[in-house]
């Protein structure tokens, strides 16, 4: 089991966003978390990557307890988080953004090779390596953000709403990419609004509503689920 959450609670100040959330991400699989706006999906990502602290429950990575570790420690543990809205460093070049992705010692050592790999994966980024990240198109920014996360050579990749704000064609490209990353053996946890697309890519998914897990199942099961079909796929 790559990642497991057991009865995790978290929030901001006096506001609780997650209530006793339990989920599991087996190694090598792609798991999705779907749900409406404000359900707590981003909060979930931030708890896992260490940006906000755990208020209760346990967070385990490969059997080790990692709850309570700060974000930069989590990266060393092998978790990489592609944040909502990409959050590239706008006035750094594409290559600088990628470079900073490789900040941790184990990634720094293999910086040159890693950079090559990412450029192979994203030839367009290589073309624009000296361009300021803030001037890239939406799709290119997403590529850069994903590439930046991959530079740390993670075991688990967290993706927060990768399709947000992107044109449909670009969205398809992004999810293609997710398939390719998965094929390389990386474990992926995706939080998504675009239920249709994400269910095509993941093995299983969780439905998060108002901070609790309402449903879980394989993507096939969920695709056939009435509630999901009506509420989230418009069918």
């Amino acid at each position: 089991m790559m990642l497991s959450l057991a009865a995790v609670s978290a929030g901001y100040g006096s506001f609780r966003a997650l209530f006793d959330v339990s989920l599991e991400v087996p190694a090598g699989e792609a798991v999705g978390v779907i749900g409406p706006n404000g359900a707590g999906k981003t909060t979930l990502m931030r708890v896992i990557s260490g940006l906000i602290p755990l208020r209760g429950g346990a967070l385990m990575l490969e059997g080790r307890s990692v709850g309570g570790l700060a974000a930069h420690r989590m990266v060393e543990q092998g978790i990489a988080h592609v944040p909502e809205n990409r959050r590239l460093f706008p006035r750094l070049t594409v290559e600088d953004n990628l470079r900073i992705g490789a900040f941790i010692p184990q990634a720094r050592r293999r910086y040159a090779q890693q950079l090559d790999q990412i450029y192979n994966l994203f030839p367009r980024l290589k073309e624009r390596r000296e361009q300021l990240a803030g001037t890239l198109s939406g799709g290119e920014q997403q590529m850069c953000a994903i590439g930046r996360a991959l530079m740390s050579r993670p075991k688990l990749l967290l993706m927060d709403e990768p399709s947000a704000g992107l044109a449909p064609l670009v969205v398809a490209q992004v999810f293609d990419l997710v398939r390719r990353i998965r094929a390389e053996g990386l474990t992926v946890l995706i939080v998504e609004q675009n239920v249709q697309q994400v269910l095509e890519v993941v093995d299983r998914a969780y439905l998060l509503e108002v901070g609790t897990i309402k449903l879980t199942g394989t993507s096939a099961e969920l695709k056939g689920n009435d509630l999901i079909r009506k509420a989230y796929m418009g069918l």
Partner: protein
Amino acid sequence: MDIYLLEAIINGLLLGGVLALLALGLNLIFGVIDVVWIAYADLVMCGMYVVYWLYAGLGWPLALACAVAIAGVAVLGILVHVLIIAPILGSAPINQLLATGGLLFFLQSFATLLFGTEFRNLGLRLPIIELGDIYVSSARLLAFAMALIGAVALYFFLRRTFIGTAIRAIAQDRDIVGLMGVDQRRIYLVTSAIGGALAGLAACLLALQYDVHPFIGNTFGPLIFMICVLGGLGDMIGGFIAAFIISQIISIGGYYSNTELSYVLAFTLFIVLMFVRPRGILVR
């Protein structure tokens, strides 16, 4: 062109070098940590005293004294951050500014306590270089060269190294750098150390040319703030350019009238420019 005017321009250029170095340091700290060290010029003063004490007092070789001064002020920079800034990082920005103001008082009085108010000199008599009809102090020339070297070194550090890139990144998006494995606190410490080191380097360069006394910080401190705001607070390149503009104004102004008046001119120009371009003259 009048030879003295040319001399003034050259001297302005040379003066600008050290000012630019200090502007870089102050902008670095502001850009990354979002705090203005009001006492920055007084850190320089401390460095100058270290050089004075080691070289003129204990007879150490000048280069060694300078190296120790640079390291010393770098450590001082870290202490400033750990003891004064870090505890109040969360509170109103004006508090941090004022806390460093309290540091200004402390440093100036402590220096008075240790060394008294007399002006101290390194006792160096570096030769005056003759270029045609122009006389240039070699101390000033050396200071300019070292300042440029320092600036270039800083540039490459920020551009090419991992930590340097992290420093630039954190200035653009503080919250997200953790996701890349960057420890925010560590970067703040490194930045404070670099800011201190730059002040230490400036201290060595100034010690070559000027006497040191506890309140020397008051003579160029406000000037540095003005330069930084003029170039855009946090904008390293803007501050660098603004330093040379201001130093030219002062130098040429000093040629046409007395020194203080040229300062008044510079400051007044600053206030005026603030209203024409509040975000700095190089708005980008």
